[in-house]
Every structure is written in structure tokens, then in C-alpha cells.
């Protein structure tokens, strides 16, 4: 169904080697994300998921490989080209406690992208847009002048999402955005992602170590092991007929085999989906 749509992100032969380490943190990683598609990247801790995300976002310079967003090369981009690339690519981090500057108000945090990209130069317009964004992620306009510390983890992650969406990115890179949240809150935030994706036609790179989470949200799944992608394919293919033994191991390690439990879990997601 997405086969014919245009490729948005193309990662080719990405390698990241940190000085003083024997094996590359990211070793010859290649994949594509089409417009409107969500790719789930799963793998155990330390397998190089975050490093991949950072390289794509142009936050660290990889040892080798290419990253293209549309027709533009991210890694060889000039300073100004990188800035406009960053407008098209926004990130949400794992820990909403450390990823929001504690000394800034919600209005400043969410409005920062608008400000630095000159999208809403006037204060009033920026404020209106921030209120709109907060509403989109389910936060009241009264949050504007508050600081992150007065919000719960789930609410903070909503702020982080609103901040990322402010500049209307084409690609949203989420690095384990729900793994630091309680399960019930996880479901709410996941449903928010699902809603926003349909509403805004977002493409997403969604990193997780929880296979159930990826299954719920993603069209395509890539499985990573010690820096390499060992299996990549559609959700149904990877979950239904895993080809690589590591994928099978991962699937076996998750308490998914118990069907009632899994059904219950999916039900929680759906129930809270209705409430968002």
C-alpha cells in the first residue's frame, strides 16, 4: 500500500565508530522511510539505536555512510542547510525529565522552534500557535507559564511532543519516547502518537525496545543487534514469520506468547485511545 509513495528518509551504509572501542556502535545500517510511514527500530540496550537516531538528526557525525532527507544530504549539509533540515526533522527523547530545560516555561519550550526558525515572529501569534499545539497534545492553555517540574512524566512527554511538532516537521524521530513512563501512561502517549500521525500525515522513526509498543504503532519494523540491522520488513512479516533467529529470540523474551495478556494489553491501549 505504501509501496508506491515517495521515499522521505534514506539511510545508506551508516557506520559510527567511537574512538577507543573495538566494535562499531553502528555498523553498516541501511533503511528507508516512505512518506506517511512509521518505521519501528527495536533491539536490546546498547545495540546502537540512539546512535543511529543522532546520526540521522545530524547531531553527531558518523564515521561513514549517507543520510538523505528527500533529495537533501544531511551529513554534508552546510550550516544553513542543516538548519532547514532540522526544521523538517524533529526529535523526542526518552527521558522527559532531562530533555526539557528546567528553567524555561512551557510557552518558551514549545515556542522555541517557532522562534529560531522565524515561523511566528510576533509574540502573540507564537503564543496562539503554542496554545493550539498544547491542545493538540491534550494539555490546557493554562500550562503556558508553568515550568516542566510541575508536570508528570506523561505530561512532560506531551510537552516534548508539542515542541517537536511546532515547526511542522516531515519526519519525527522518537528515541524510546515511552520507555520511561508507567504502562498506563505509555498507552495514552502511544495513542497520542497514533492520533497525531493520522492527523498530520507524519512519517516517523520510532525507536523502542518493547516489541509490543512497536507492533502497535509501526508499519515497518527493523531489528537491530550489536550495531547491525538483522531483519527488516513489514510488521506482519516480522511478527508473523520472523526470519532471523535473533528476532525470534526477542519475540520469545517478551511476555507476548500469553494471548490473553497481550489481548488485555492491546485493550488498555484502545480504551485509553478512546479517552484521548
Amino acid at each position: 500500500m505504501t509501496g508506491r509513495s515517495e521515499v522521505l528518509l534514506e539511510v545508506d551504509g551508516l557506520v559510527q565508530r567511537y574512538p577507543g572501542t573495538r566494535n562499531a556502535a553502528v555498523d553498516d545500517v541501511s533503511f528507508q522511510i516512505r512518506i506517511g510511514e512509521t518505521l519501528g527500530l527495536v533491539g536490546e540496550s546498547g545495540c546502537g539505536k540512539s546512535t543511529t537516531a543522532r546520526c540521522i538528526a545530524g547531531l553527531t557525525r558518523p564515521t561513514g555512510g549517507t543520510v538523505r532527507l528527500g533529495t537533501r544530504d544531511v551529513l554534508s549539509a552546510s550550516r544553513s542547510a542543516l538548519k532547514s533540515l532540522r526544521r523538517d526533522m524533529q526529535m523526542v527523547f526518552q527521558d522527559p525529565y532531562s530533555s526539557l530545560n528546567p528553567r524555561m516555561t512551557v510557552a518558551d519550550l514549545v515556542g522555541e522552534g517557532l522562534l529560531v526558525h522565524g515561523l511566528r515572529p510576533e509574540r502573540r501569534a507564537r503564543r496562539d500557535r503554542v496554545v493550539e499545539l498544547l491542545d493538540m497534545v491534550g494539555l490546557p492553555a493554562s500550562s503556558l507559564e508553568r515550568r516542566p517540574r510541575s508536570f508528570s512524566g506523561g505530561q512532560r512527554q506531551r510537552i516534548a511532543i508539542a515542541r517537536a511538532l511546532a515547526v511542522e516537521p516531515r519526519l519525527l524521530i522518537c528515541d524510546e519516547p515511552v520507555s520511561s513512563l508507567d504502562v498506563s501512561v505509555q498507552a495514552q502517549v502511544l495513542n497520542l502518537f497514533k492520533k497525531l500521525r493520522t492527523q498530520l500525515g507524519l512519517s516517523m522513526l520510532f525507536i523502542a525496545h518493547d516489541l509490543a509498543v512497536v507492533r502497535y504503532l509501526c508499519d515497518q519494523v527493523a531489528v537491530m543487534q550489536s550495531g547491525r540491522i538483522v531483519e527488516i520488513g513489514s510488521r506482519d512479516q516480522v511478527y508473523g514469520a520472523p526470519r532471523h533467529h535473533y528476532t525470534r529470540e526477542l519475540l520469545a523474551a517478551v511476555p507476548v506468547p500469553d494471548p490473553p495478556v497481550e489481548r488485555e494489553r492491546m485493550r488498555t491501549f484502545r480504551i485509553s485511545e478512546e479517552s484521548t
Partner: protein
Amino acid sequence: MVRFITRRLGQLVIVFAGLVVVAFLMSVILPGDPGRAAAGRNATVAQVAEARHRLGLDRPLLMQFGHYAARILHGDLGTSVFTHQSVLSDIRQVLPSSVELVVAGMIINLVIAVPLGVLAAYRRGRPADVVARLFVLVGAAMPAFWLGLMLQLIFADQLKILPLSGQLSFGVDVRRITGATTLDALLEGNFPAFGDALKHLILPAIALSASFIAVVARTVRSSMITALDSDYIVLARATGAKEWRVVVRHGLRNALVPASTILGMQLGWMLGATVLVESTFNRTGLGAYMVTGVLQNDLYAVIGSILTIGVVFLLANFAVDLIQLWLNPRLRPRRRTSAVPLVTSPAPAGGVS
């Protein structure tokens, strides 16, 4: 909020009381007999005894302390045997000039230390970091009076671009309003005199601040490194913010909180360090007053100066606490958390009885 301030004020009073005790003990223990000093160098034994009685020095120590504390609370710091004035009025006379020097030193401290600390953190491990750290270390390693002499030698004696000593050039006059020469010149609207006073201030301020810069630069560097490594910095970059905004708006604003604590303490220390600088540069001030006091065995003048420095130190720290409270809401004690023990702790006691 009010509780926090009241608590800090309480601490302030306690520390001040401690300061008074130390000052009193100094007056008892330190060499130099105040009775003899008051009676004069050529006084007879009877005259000295009479002076001792007049000063209450023949009474028990505890009573002497009571009198001493009461006098201090009334602002009576004793009389200087050298100037024959009350120590308090002497200090009032010289303190503004020292404050002026400390403010100038503080400005130099900030202007050099903060950017250097930020630069060192930003380029950590690179040559710029090494050079910056070496630079401040050399500054800190030089004794202030020696650095003062070197500065005089280079900038006044050799290059002749800055005045050697004093507060104003010959023939330049400023009416005393506050006692701080630069400020008085400004208040008078006498701009040439202001420039002249400023020129006289530069070298002593550098000599005074050199040893303080290292501490601030190091604090800024380390808290800046913590800030620069945090997720919100990476995220700010990912959002597309320029480096300047990332470093200053996101990084520095968080990194300045620990530095401001140090700066508050340095304000008091700097006032003490004027002892090492003012005489070298022949400036009026608390430091020079203290040096004279020590040389003249003028006990009350010395103790009064020390008390003044202590009080300034306490007040500066209190002010920093308030500023931090205002800048950083995170430090505000949360009502909820502080209320919890109050509610729960009486409960088990009630259950037992």
C-alpha cells in the same frame, strides 16, 4: 517562601553572634593591652589601671562580654587609639572606597571568569581549554600584593599608560559625597574626574580579582560541562537553535546558579583581600585601615574591620540566597513536601500514648 527567608535570617543572626564571640575573644587574647593603649604610651601604672577600670577591663570575662556585645549592638566598636575617632565612623569613612574597589574587582572577575569558563567547557580537552585553565591558574598562583607590584612596574612605570597609585591624579578634585571616588565624580557630573578615578581603579582591581577568577572559571566550567552534556542541550540543537542560543540561553542560564553561590562568598572574601592591595596602591579603604591598625597595635580598629568584613560577607550571602530563590523556582521549598512530616509525625506519637 516566608519560612525560607525567616530561616535564613535566623541563621544569619546565629552566625553573627558567633562572629561577635570571636571578635571578643580576639580582643582578650591578642597582644596589646587596650588599657595601656587608651591611657597613652607614657602613662603611669596608676593611669593605666584607671583606664582599665574605665573600660571595664578589670571585671569578670563574662560581664566584659555582655558589655561588649551590648556596645556592638549599639554600633559602638570602640575608639581607635590612632585616629582618636570612633572606629565605626572611621570605617564609615573608608568603607565606600573599598566597596568601589571590590565592585570593580567583581566586574573584572565576572567579565573574565565566566566567558573563560564557558569557552573551556565548550572546547573541553582542546587547546583552548588548556590555555584558559592555565591562564586562570597562573593568575591565582600569584600573591595579590606581588601581582600589584608587577602591574605597577609594567603598566605605570614602564608603559606609563595607567597611574601608579592613589585614587585621583594631582590637581583633580572630587567633593566627597558617598566616599567612593568614581561614584562621587559621577554624581558631581565631573566626567574627566570620573575617567581619572576609573583609571586609578583598574590596576588594583585586577590585582584584587586575579586569585578569584580561577575559582569562578572552574565552577562555571564544570557546571557548564554538566549542562552541555544534558539532553535538553542536544534537543535544543536538534530543534535548530543556533550555537549561541544553545550555549548561553540553555547552558549558561543553568550553569550560573552554582557560580552565583561562589560569587556571593567571594564578595566577602574580596573585601578582606583589600588588605593585600590597598596599601600597595596607596588607596583609602578598609584594607588599608586594617593594615594601619595592625601596625599601630590599634586593637579595636582591627576587630571593627574584621566584624565589618564578616557582616558584609553574611549580607552578601543572604542577598545571593534571595536572588537564587527568585531566579530559580526549583530551590523554593515545596509546600507539599515540607508539610508531610508535620502531618505524619505526630500521628504515631498519638497512637502510642
